[in-house]
């Protein structure tokens, strides 16, 4: 009887320690997950901000102004433009 009791006590202690470690690991993993999720959100926000920046720099009025002003470019005379149909080119 005493032997069985000792055995059960050992099992109980093992289970208790197991529970505690798994709980601890779950919490650790969860905080990792949390961190990664935050990072993904941050990156997404960064992407949005960069997209915004790209759009602002690439604003057509701005491109047009720089092209005609600083770079002295102009649209070619339509007579000097050749339109090539895609199927004919192949």
């Amino acid at each position: 009887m005493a032997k069985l009791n000792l055995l059960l006590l050992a099992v109980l202690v093992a289970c208790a320690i197991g529970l505690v470690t798994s709980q601890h690991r779950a919490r650790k993993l969860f905080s990792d997950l949390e961190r990664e999720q935050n990072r993904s959100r941050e990156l997404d926000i960064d992407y949005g901000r960069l997209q915004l920046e790209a759009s602002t720099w690439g604003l057509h009025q701005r491109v047009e102004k720089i092209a005609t002003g600083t770079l002295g470019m102009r649209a070619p005379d339509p007579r000097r433009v050749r339109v090539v149909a895609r199927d004919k080119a192949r």
Partner: protein
Amino acid sequence: MSRAAVATTQGMVRFPVWRARFVLGALLAAFLLLAGRSVYLQALKTDFLQEKGEARYSRVLEVPATRGRILDRNGEALAVSTPVKSIWAIPADVELSARERQKLARLLGIEVAELNRKLSEARDFVYLKRQISPETAETIEALGIKGIYQQREFRRYYPGGEVTAHVVGFTGVDDAGQEGIELAHQETLGGRPGSRRVIKDRLGRVVEDVESIRAAQTGADLTLAIDSKIQSLAFGALKAAVEHHRAKAGALVAVDVRSGEILALANVPSYNPNNRARLGGAQLRNRAVTDVFEPGSTLKPFTVAVALEAGKVSPSTAVATAPGRLTIANYTIHDAHPAAMLTTAQIIQKSSNVGAAKIALALPREAMWDLFRRVGFGTAPELTFPGAASGKLRHYRTWQPIEQATMAYGHGISVSLLQLARAYTVFAREGELVPLTLVKSGSVASGEKILSTETARAVRAMLEQAVQNGGTGPRARIMGWRVAGKTGTAHKQENGGYAADKYLSSFVGFAPASAPRIVLAVMIDEPSAGQYYGGVVAAPVFAQVMQGVLRMLGVPHDAPLEPIELPGEDEAKEST
């Protein structure tokens, strides 16, 4: 013998039995009371108590949902949400020296007096400044002022500015759509903030996710049919024309004939959606979609189409238009270029009111009404956009002969510019009416057959005549592509009558005429710099934008590349 006597004889103090029973009973009662209490707490009040217990460590966190982006057809951003911070305070908790106040006010970008006023309010919660940049927010946080807190919010940015303002619309401070696409697609763009229950430790760190009450749904991105390059070109050309002709307003719609996609939708005056401090109703109006006007001559092709469809006339049928006037019931219709005799094609080319009226009067009222109705006049277009106007088309049973005559050249009926552009797809697509969309579809839209292919082609040929020298709209022509279209110069309605000196100049057309790809409608409201004919005011905008669009889309030329010789301005004269 008494019990007491017995006890004494045995040498012990012997208590009466009832006393032991009493103590036992009392103890039992106490246990029962405890058991009852525990049953009450464990079984009956358990939910309440557990809730209270959990409230000590479990918290419900709001998971914010980012609003979806709005992109143009090539993936360029038109509206993007980025996080910002709002600074709020509990005024009673804030203790600041004068210098600190000055510093804080400078960081927040407000006056010290305003800061003081806000901090002296008797409320528990007061916003000091909403939507400031995360960098500034960090600096403020570093000051470590007691009683000042931050809250994360999103702010919407519109890189397109005034160019795409009317299409995209804007959101309010609470991140909900208020105008345009932002409002129309609020449901999908907005997403849904989620919430989850977590366990927090003493320091406020989340240690365990208990449950996800509701998963946050990020708003879906929306790709519009708008091409920001075309939009930019259109807006620029329209703005220049409105300024040059000192007009009140202008609007423009460009539609892809194959897919029914709206490639550009521009309005002047416009506004900057990023800074809406001083905003009037006039700037906010999306005229192309929400405003209706009497279209004038741009409606004549539909009258002629009804007659062709009914077999009443052919393009070469001669109509007597002498002497350039027609009087019906005390009302006289005038022509700007009086002629004795005009063919049907010439009526369109010269924009003859008398001719159009005569053709209309030979038609059954019902046939005209039916076509007008079927090309979409009088009903709001099926477009997910707030405030799309339906215009006005009265039932044919109420038409008087004079009304039937004036309707032939676009008076007594009102349409929006968008409806007009859509109606013209009938001529551009062999008689099919194309449903319009502001969202990118990328596929050929199936149209509804309204006119026979022959009629559509015949009208197309007439519209091409109208932009040749001798027609009213030669300024709509462009080098390298054949153009077809119709001018309109309508007197504006005012106080129940027509104003003598207020006009609405328009041009609706498409190109290339051999295989139309783009329908473009231009409207200039009240040009007041002297010129007001649609062929002089609106047609050049059409030409400028159309040329750019066809070049950008790489549409093959269908006309020789020769410079265009334009006649004098007299040709453009028309009285509607």
